[in-house]
């Protein structure tokens, strides 16, 4: 496997977010900031958006001092910016949505409105559901929020919408991947990167099945693609633990699989596990973590990027019939 760069998409998003967020302190029309003069900035927390299908869009909000906007709901409106070849000016109005706070697993959620929190108090993102984009290209997401202690705030970020999904998407056939398992001839850390520190794979129940075998046997599968150790996002470690917990509670509904991203993170060039590459490596880049629910017929039922609501995944699992042994 050739050297893997970070997803081209995520780098472009960082660049465009910098453009969107740059110089906001000089903007003559900012929303009132709080007594500290802090300005809320927005960043995308979801990826692989595409035309024509309702999907989840997640955005993180934070201040420059590290505090995060948490709890409650925010309003998001999307505007079409055009393409690199054909920019649109002014941006054309698109869909609007209410985004609900989605906490990182194991962190607090409160019924109050948006407020500032230290990362140790709460951390998460805001997720809008059923957002449909009608055109491929770049879109701007404008967030408005009434943040306790700061007042009305506005922040913007940008996202790219593709004509078609880059990754396997709901309604598509799952890829028959021979991912590594505990029976594979591979070092333990290639099966789960936490074996680097713990000398053994910590969650063996997530490494018993290949996706291919689950498909061949007609078993539903919940598959998380993540690298708990070598993740450079904030979301990887906790989400794998969530899937491990679901595996103990719903073992009669589906098989549960963790596919580690890296075969060898340190190698030069670094080596990605083929199973992860099958699903996530596109044009030399990838994003992670991802969660896929595959039905017994081998069709992808749903998918989630970065963070997900456990009750949504549970609801999806509970619609599955109990498996025969």
């Amino acid at each position, binding site marked *: 496997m050739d050297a893997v760069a*970070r997803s081209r998409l995520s780098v472009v998003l960082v*660049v*465009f977010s*910098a453009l969107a967020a740059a*110089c906001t302190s*000089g903007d003559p029309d900012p929303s009132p900031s709080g007594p500290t003069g802090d300005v809320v900035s927005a960043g995308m927390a979801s990826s692989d958006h595409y035309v024509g299908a309702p999907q989840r869009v997640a955005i993180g909000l934070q201040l420059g001092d590290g505090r995060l906007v948490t709890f409650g709901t925010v309003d998001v409106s999307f505007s079409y910016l055009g393409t690199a070849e054909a920019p649109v000016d002014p941006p054309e109005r698109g869909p609007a949505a209410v985004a609900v706070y989605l906490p990182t697993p194991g962190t607090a959620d409160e019924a109050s409105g948006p407020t500032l929190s230290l990362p*140790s108090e709460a951390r998460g993102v805001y997720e809008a559901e059923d957002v449909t984009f009608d055109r491929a290209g770049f879109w701007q997401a404008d967030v408005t929020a009434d943040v306790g202690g700061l007042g009305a705030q506005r922040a913007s970020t940008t996202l790219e919408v593709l004509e078609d999904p880059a990754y396997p998407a709901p309604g598509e056939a799952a890829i028959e991947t021979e991912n590594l398992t505990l029976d594979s001839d591979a070092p333990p850390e290639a099966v789960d990167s*936490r074996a680097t520190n713990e000398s053994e794979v910590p969650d063996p129940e997530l490494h018993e099945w290949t996706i291919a075998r689950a498909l061949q046997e007609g078993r539903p599968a919940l598959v998380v693609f993540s690298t708990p150790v070598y993740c450079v996002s904030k979301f990887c470690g906790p989400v794998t633990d969530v899937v491990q917990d679901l595996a103990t509670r719903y073992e009669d509904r589906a098989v549960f699989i963790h596919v580690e991203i890296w075969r060898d993170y340190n190698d030069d060039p670094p080596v990605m596990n083929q199973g992860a590459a099958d699903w996530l490596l596109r044009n030399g880049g990838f994003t992670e973590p991802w969660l896929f629910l595959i039905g017994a017929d081998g069709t992808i039922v749903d998918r989630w990027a970065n963070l997900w609501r456990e009750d949504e995944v549970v609801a999806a699992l509970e619609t599955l019939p109990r498996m025969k042994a």
Partner: protein
Amino acid sequence: MPRLIVATLLASALVAAACGSNGDGSDGPSAPPSGALGPVTAEAAAEAVRGLCDLVSATGRAGAEATFLDRSHETLHVIAAATEERNRDAAADLLEAKQRVEADLAGADLPPDFPSDVEALIRATRGALEAIGLEAPACPA
């Protein structure tokens, strides 16, 4: 030159132009090292290390977790992302050491090895910062 790098350079130039210059004609400061999660400033890196220095002597799990999450955690991710662009061994050392500390904090109480795990994380952080051309403050004696 790959399209990705061209696009990044162009956008960075646009940001610099849009935000104006120093006004006195001098060159601006050199850009901080950057990766997929954005730039690592010397100030943020120093604060992250100082947070880890304070973490060594933590005795309670909740307080240790707050110190780690509020002062160091996010910046360590940003440092790792910048480091892996230049030195994957140093990035791996940092991420592995960070995960050990996170595992320590996930328990009900801090394990006996916690101080040594934090010290290992400090060493790995210094190694990563050196790889990206930044210095880190020494921990108070």
